[in-house]
């Protein structure tokens, strides 16, 4: 791995800054877009940097081939840095199931595996894609991997952080939006709502599991 050493006194490159920024964002459990990385100044000197120096404020460029090549070289030179895009959003657990590959495609994002797993990065991609996509992708992944429904309450927790109202609105919208027909709800006796994907669970199984998860498991500690 390169780009993680002490560069004090040396002239810092765009690659150094980009790698450091990716890691900084990842440490804060955030992704960074390619656009943000390309907008970084091309070069600057950490020690005694003069921002007015010619060339320091140049950016790498837009979405052109040169920018893509630089980003590719950045990943190649840093073992921990990863690219993820909406189109690349299937977990290894459900790999091969093309029915899951419907998360909105979008520009790539970058993260460091020192701080984030691919699963968490994928969740952040879903979050950026919008609430409906986030809920649906999360429910599908969970139903697929665990063969269990997921409590709506989970979406109030970090990193989802839906409000009750926001969750209600999203579920209402989801019910009227094409592409989410597989997302269904069931309730436990306590009134708690659980979501599941019909691709992986049938109604009766989901209802039994919701009751177990909400009531049965606590009664059988």
């Amino acid at each position, binding site marked *: 791995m390169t780009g993680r050493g002490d560069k004090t006194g040396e002239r810092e490159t765009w690659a150094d800054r980009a790698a450091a920024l990716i890691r900084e964002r990842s440490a804060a459990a955030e992704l960074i877009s390619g656009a943000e990385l390309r907008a970084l100044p091309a070069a600057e000197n950490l020690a005694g940097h003069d921002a007015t120096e010619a060339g320091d404020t140049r950016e790498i460029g837009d979405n052109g081939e040169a920018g893509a090549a630089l980003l590719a070289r950045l990943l190649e030179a840093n073992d921990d840095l990863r690219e993820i895009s909406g189109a690349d959003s299937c977990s290894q*657990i459900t790999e091969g199931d093309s029915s899951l590959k419907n998360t909105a495609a979008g520009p790539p994002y970058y993260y460091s595996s020192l701080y984030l797993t691919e699963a968490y990065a994928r969740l952040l991609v879903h979050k950026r894609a919008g609430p409906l996509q986030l809920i649906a992708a999360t429910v599908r992944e969970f139903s697929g*991997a*665990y063969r269990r429904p997921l409590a709506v309450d989970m979406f109030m927790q970090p990193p989802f952080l839906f409000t009750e109202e926001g969750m209600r609105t999203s579920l209402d919208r989801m019910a009227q939006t094409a592409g989410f027909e597989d997302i269904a709800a069931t309730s436990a006796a306590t009134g708690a709502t659980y979501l599941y994907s019909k691709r992986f*669970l049938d109604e009766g199984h989901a209802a039994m*599991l919701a009751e177990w998860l909400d009531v049965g*498991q*606590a*009664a*059988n500690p």
Partner: protein
Amino acid sequence: MRVYGGWAGKVLRVDLTAGRIWTEDTIARYKDYLGGTGIGYKVMWDEVPAGTMPYDPENRIIFAVGPLAGTGAPCSGRTAVTTLWPLCWPIPLVASGHMGGQFAAKLKYAGYDAVVIQGKAARPVWLMIVDQKVEIHAARRIWGQGIRAATAAIAEIMGPDAVVAAIGPAGENLVPMSVVINDRSHSAGGVGSVLGSKNLKAIGIRGTGSIRIAGKKEDWERLIKYHLAIIGGNNQHVVPNSPQPWAEHYDPASRWNASRGRRWGAAAHRVDTGSCDPRDMNRIAYRSNVAAFFLGDNAWNHTVRGNGCTSCPIRCHTILKVPSVAAKYGIPKVGQNTCVGLLFGATFFKKLPDGLKGKTSLEACMVGMHLADDLGIWSNYGQLQRDFKKLYYDGIIKKNLDGREFQSYSWKKYEEGDPAFLFELLPRIARKEGELATALGLGTGYLLARWGISEEEWEKDKEVAYWKLGHPKHHASEETGQCGLLINLIYNRDAQCHSHSNFLRNGLPLPLQKKLAAELWGAPEAVDALGDYRPMHPAKARMAIWSLLRKELHDSLPLCNWMGPWVASPLRERGYRGDDSLESMLYTLATGDNKDRKGLDDAGMRIFLLHRALTIRGMGTKEMRTRHDRIPAWVYEDQTGKGTFTKGTTCMDRDDVRTALDMFYDELGWDKATGAPTRSTYRRFGLDSVGAVLAGQDLAPR
């Protein structure tokens, strides 16, 4: 004789009738049985003949630990308390209660691997152990007092570093549903009244010695770090319960519920658990908050910290501070416990004003812990509460009480979920006051018999969770299919086995669980998705047997079977594998007795077989399959109408269960027709003399 590490070397013997105290050499008599339940079963086999009753002076009660207690091995703070089980119905058979806390390590530091109590004192006494100085003292001042006051009184005499295991009024009054408790909240259930029958109020221990580790110091330290590296959260759940930046997986059902922003809100200075990356071994204690797991987010606000046993990094007893209960009920605002002990009060109520995760529920838990852990009442894994609810709502209580007694309870409060009701009920159970309290204190089997209710009525109600012989199910077929069913057949109390359930609830996705299962038990078919059970498979029988052996090893070494086994881990670089040779590695390094996994498993099998032999001798029949290993009707009940082996049903198929039993007995080397171990199986595991005795009574098939 060879000198071993690990063991303290002596078993303390106390005859309360004669007032005699002596010691035995642990290695000479008990080494092959390791410790814990192994020593307990050995004493019971050798010294307590069939036909003895729990409260007879001839009965023994054995507090036994083992070679790992006091060594600093993680999760080694367990004590097994073995005796004739007064709740086992219709005839008492051998069983063990299990407690954590500080008792196990202190006993070792005092120089003992076990304390065996026999006889009956002429008047109430307590036992003081200070290293080699062991004395029987009059308990006039503490008899009749609650466990907290008795513990404090003994600690005043012995000093602040003493540990005290005491019974409460329930045990003194020979209420079978009673416990012995050490360290405030660590109880062994079902055994309190046996101590009461011997007029023994408490055992206080101060130990100033140490335990020698046979292996090299650096090897021991490396092994402990290895153990800590693969340890998870409470119940060895190895993924967090919400998405974390470091985690590939999350499962809301996991008890690893730390997350940045979740705080011990009642600590002197609020403590944020942080994200708890598994590689940070200094934050293992922050991973689980059991109170918050059961009682919801509100419990975080009331959490002071976690508490637990000697050398255990998982602090599964949550210390809660709830100021409102001091004002409302006049009880201490701080309490602590875990699982059924934590939920003792709340689970009496069918309805609580704001549900199990509401404020009233939390207060009911505080009241329940305060009363039960001072009076010394046992819940029998929640059966007391389930029985109570069924008895009340089915009108059985009203039918069996005279009008005056029935009216003496505030049933409106009960129906409304008012925790104050517990002040009416629980002290009466401890004092055997009135018909209801007396019946409840007997335990399910004897209660049903007293009130003329058939066992079949209880056996068919899935909600009441009754299994057989007076005890409930414990992680049985409803959540672990045939494996859990087989495990629940064996014991004379609830199975207390978590080897299988901790694996199945570990939080890894099903494909990963199947992958690990294939490595451990030979085929991925060992495990099924929850509520999607498939037909019996030999790997399920192997998983059940492996689970039982782990339980007996854990109860004898000791290691905590609530936290282990450690066969899955939170480490993705290990493919989430744990290590089921951990027990043998710890044993070998601690004792110097070189045993690999197979070798130690054979010792576990010997202990397990001895338990079976005791059961057969106690029942006087080898027909275990039909008379002991019984299965309640609810297991076969199809509530969905969709039939067995369909998604969403948990019911078992009768033919498939017959196949499961055949495979299980066969794999164990037991006779399939009777379910009794064969003479050659006893011989194979070093119990030829036991096999010979049983064969002489036609209790061991050839």
